[in-house]
């Protein structure tokens, strides 16, 4: 067992473990902190796949921005273990059924995977920022530009929803 395989297994154990802890912990704040650990370990996996850019972006966007937003919401709404609503038994059953069937599907799909190359340190340059930029602005320039329409419409939406309506239009 070489060092990369060891790191891969270590990261995998930590990420699966903290993902489980995220679901299991009673307090929403603790859940979020566990989720941050999950994001960090997944970034570690990206580094192992030689995708440094993705790893950095994953930390900045998810562990940084989105998680801070989550924390703010949880703290502003003052959620904690006591305010957790009591879960409905029937709802739990439905959740187990639907989640279980999804798990079954995923496991079936994963069983077909050739698992001999989990780790590809320094192999392939697909994840490097230079290659990414070249692909993005050559082959994928249309979707890249068109996504600006998507963000623009979301921004307009935020303004429409957020702006205070004046009493008399016109």
């Amino acid at each position, binding site marked *: 067992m070489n060092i990369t395989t060891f790191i891969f297994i270590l990261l995998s154990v930590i990420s699966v473990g903290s993902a489980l802890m995220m679901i299991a912990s009673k307090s929403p704040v603790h859940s979020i902190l566990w989720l941050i650990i999950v994001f960090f370990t997944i970034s570690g996996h990206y580094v192992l796949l030689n995708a440094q850019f993705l790893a950095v972006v994953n930390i900045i966007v998810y562990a940084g921005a989105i998680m801070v937003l989550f924390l703010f919401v949880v703290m502003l709404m003052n959620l904690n273990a006591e305010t957790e609503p009591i879960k409905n038994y029937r709802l739990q059953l439905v959740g187990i059924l639907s989640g279980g069937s999804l798990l079954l*599907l995923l496991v079936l799909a994963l069983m077909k995977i050739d698992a001999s190359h989990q780790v590809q340190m320094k192999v392939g340059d697909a994840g490097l920022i230079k290659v990414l930029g070249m692909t993005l602005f050559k082959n994928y320039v249309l979707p890249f530009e068109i996504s600006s*329409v998507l963000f623009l419409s979301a921004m307009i939406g935020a303004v429409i929803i957020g702006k205070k309506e004046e009493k008399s239009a*016109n």
Partner: protein
Amino acid sequence: MNSIILSALLGVLMMFSGAFVKRTTLSKYFAFVGLAGLFASSVYELIARQPFFHIDVHDMVHTNNFNLAFIAIVLGCTLIYFLLNGSEIEKVGAHVSEYYALIFFILCGISIAATFNTLLMLFIGIEIVSIPLYILTGSDKRNLKSNEAALKYFLMGAFSTGIMLMGIAFIYGGNPNASFFIHNLEIGSGKMPVMIAVGLVFLLVSMSFKVSAAPFHFWTPDVYDGAPTVFTSFMSTIVKVAGFFAFIRLFESAFGVVQNQWQSLVLFITAATLIIGNVTAVFQQSVKRMLAYSSIAQAGFMMLAIFALNNKAKEGILLYSAAYSLATIGIFAILTKMKDYTIDGFNGLAKEQPLLGFAGLIFLLSLTGIPLTAGFQSKFFMLMAAIETGHHYWIAVLAVLLAAVSAYYYFRVIQAIYFKEPSPEGVVSGKLSSVYKLTLILTVILIIIIGIYPELIIGWLYS
């Protein structure tokens, strides 16, 4: 290609016009002129097969007669929608030019969803359609029902988007080329690999959600009921048929070779949609809610095209988009003028406003599928497509039986319009402009012309 670029630009223009133009009627005319130009450019592209812009898109989108004709139909219907509802959009709120900007962005998304050649573009197209819709649903900010509808639509829609993305990821990872291109998946006609099968089911679920096919239709009645009526009219017609078009394009190009493996799944969805939509619509008292269920029922008919996926289905979906959109936009335009949205609110409409009553009659007859209307032709083509597949004839029989059920709830409104006495305080609120009346007449004429001469639309497929 024209419509993708020009509609995005028009959206941006409308957005800025909101900052400089204070009078809302001005932005109405501006939007209308812009849309007319957009429609003309798309018709030009359809006839000349030559876009204004020559951009190397690296095969991300692909245009042919089928999707160019569809885009032209959609833009034409939107033009009629603008003419009929211009004054109603102004009444929704203060941000009129922003609403128009969002509608133009939706049209951009529809053009992408109709011409996509890769799963990536499909995703972007569907998202550009969905996000402005969440906003338009919640645009009536002081109305609690509108807020609830927007939140419900947003949460459910975000969830289905997640499922779609996961499906795309599975298909990307599962095909031997690791490709997004729908023509390049190389699934093979044998038994599907599990990864592809999972991806296919996920895409089927999320697309069914977007077109509100049962059993993924639960959001539809609440959202259509809660949204401002003008925007309900837009999203139950133009957006819905665009969803179907993307659905057909995806399943024909990407998964057409393995049709025998997913056909029974689609068959189940079709049957469930037809039954649930038609049977539940019978019990509705509010016309708006009835139309929401009827849109589910009509979605069931459009699902037949996905079940069949032959040439008749292609012709059928073009006809169906035109016929269903025109009739539903028309009936919604009448509904917005009503004081009372229940079926009793339509009592004696023909006595007070003969034109509105007659137009309503034609729209409802077309939705039912009575001969000489466009609705008949479109339903006829769908049934032909289903029968031409050569198996599962029962689905065509079921569709016909349920179309008979649909006659019940459509005719209840017709009965109210023609055979009941109007209430003393009047049926219609506000004055009707001459543009509104002329457009209603135009819509009626279009429905009858398409009903007599469907080649007018189908012909574009083969020109």
